[in-house]
């Protein structure tokens, strides 16, 4: 899709006025790697940084979408403008995806101050898509006060989210394994606030205790609270929002807010460089053919994977 120059200016102007279609279209352009989208973002970057970005993560089926729905409804009572980015997995085989997070957010659909965008992860493994961070910027310019990012249901190390948001809400549920799971490295370390959803189920108290025990070992300034919730019945939602606000206040008072945003920017720059490198190396049908050829040789032991890597890297010399 080639946009005429005038169209680009129009998208920029319309977005600055809070136009929904412009926001939606610009996100699509980013997802499709259109060069014009980057030019618009370069220009608009100075208008970003105002929205507070909240990440919602946790294992599949923990209730992330339902919880997001309830949190947003509470914030809407304070008349805040909200954007939600919901990421779901993309099939590694066909590139297709079923994005179903809207199913749990049906009522938000008629609220003109809530903007929901579903994204396929499109091959990225960190729980977000490559375009997520850019979409956050678009929705920031669009005028959202809060941006919620709901990750793909994560396993043990998909921690992109913490490098993208200001506060991370980790949603857990009872019955996901013994206490050794909670002391492993990875997603358990990234929560600023923990919610144990479906807290009416067997084992909820034990899960809460185990998470608390793990957190007691932390020596950080901020001790993440662990909050029982039953999202579907609206229980615990107030407490979660209070904790998110407390975390926001804590970060702003201690200067951690600024530090975190610097760390996130660093991660973003490195990530963009990595993407560019990968694209430069691999984004070419001829190279695809070469890689397929090398893959065959590596599988049949004619070549080792380290030499294959060197062969590919020689292309950029």
């Amino acid at each position, binding site marked *: 899709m080639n946009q005429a120059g005038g169209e680009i200016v129009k998208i920029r102007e319309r977005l600055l006025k809070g136009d929904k*279609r412009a926001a939606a279209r610009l996100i699509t352009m980013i997802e499709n790697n259109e060069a014009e989208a980057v030019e618009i973002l370069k220009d608009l970057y100075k208008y970003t940084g105002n929205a507070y970005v909240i990440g919602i993560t946790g294992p599949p089926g923990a209730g992330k979408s339902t919880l997001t729905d309830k949190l947003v409804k509470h914030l809407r009572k304070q008349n805040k403008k909200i954007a939600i980015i919901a990421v779901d997995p993309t099939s590694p085989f066909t590139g*297709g995806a079923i*994005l179903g997070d809207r199913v749990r957010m049906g009522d938000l659909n008629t609220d003109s101050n809530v903007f929901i*965008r579903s994204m396929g992860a499109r091959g990225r493994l960190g729980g977000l898509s490559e375009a997520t961070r850019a979409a956050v910027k678009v929705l920031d310019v669009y005028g959202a006060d809060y941006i919620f990012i709901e990750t793909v249901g994560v396993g043990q190390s998909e921690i992109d989210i913490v490098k993208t948001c200001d506060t991370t809400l980790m949603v857990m549920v009872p019955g996901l394994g013994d206490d050794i799971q909670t002391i492993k490295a990875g997603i358990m370390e990234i929560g600023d606030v923990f919610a144990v959803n479906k807290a009416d189920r067997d084992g909820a108290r034990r899960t809460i205790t185990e998470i608390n025990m793990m957190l007691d070992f932390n020596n950080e300034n901020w001790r993440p609270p662990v909050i029982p919730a039953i999202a579907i019945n609206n229980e615990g939602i107030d407490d979660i929002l209070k904790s998110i606000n407390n975390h926001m206040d804590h970060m702003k008072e201690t200067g951690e807010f600024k530090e975190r945003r610097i760390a996130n920017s660093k991660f973003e720059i490195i990530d963009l460089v990595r993407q560019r490198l990968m694209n430069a190396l691999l984004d070419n049908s001829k190279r695809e053919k070469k890689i397929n050829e090398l893959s065959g040789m590596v599988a049949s032991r004619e070549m080792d994977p380290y030499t294959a890597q060197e062969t590919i890297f020689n292309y950029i010399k």
Partner: protein
Amino acid sequence: MKRTIRVLVAKPGLDGHDRGAKVIARALRDAGMEVIYTGLRQTPKQIVNAAIQEDVDCVAMSILSGAHNTLFPKVVELLREEDASDILVVGGGVIPGEDIPFLKEKGISEIFTPGTTTDTTIEYIRKNIKRK
């Protein structure tokens, strides 16, 4: 780079049968499309809001309750009001043959009745989306 086609699969109206919609959603996914599924009992306004925020290429609706003559044209009309007529609208479900000319006249591009293969639907969407 190949563009990913985005389709909103929606169930307007009051019938609670979404097996067909889910089969279509799955087939479109397997054809490499991104399918946004909205769940049951959506009003035309909800469907149009979702279509705009998600910036889809196509809205595919399924109705089994008999309300298609009211709800399908309403979605087309609301899309037009939002200046979003570049979104392809198709429908499916239990729809009597004599209603199809009326629906097409109202701007629903194609109606897929029971027995249509998923391949037919996929091909139709690929060929007819208005934004390239």
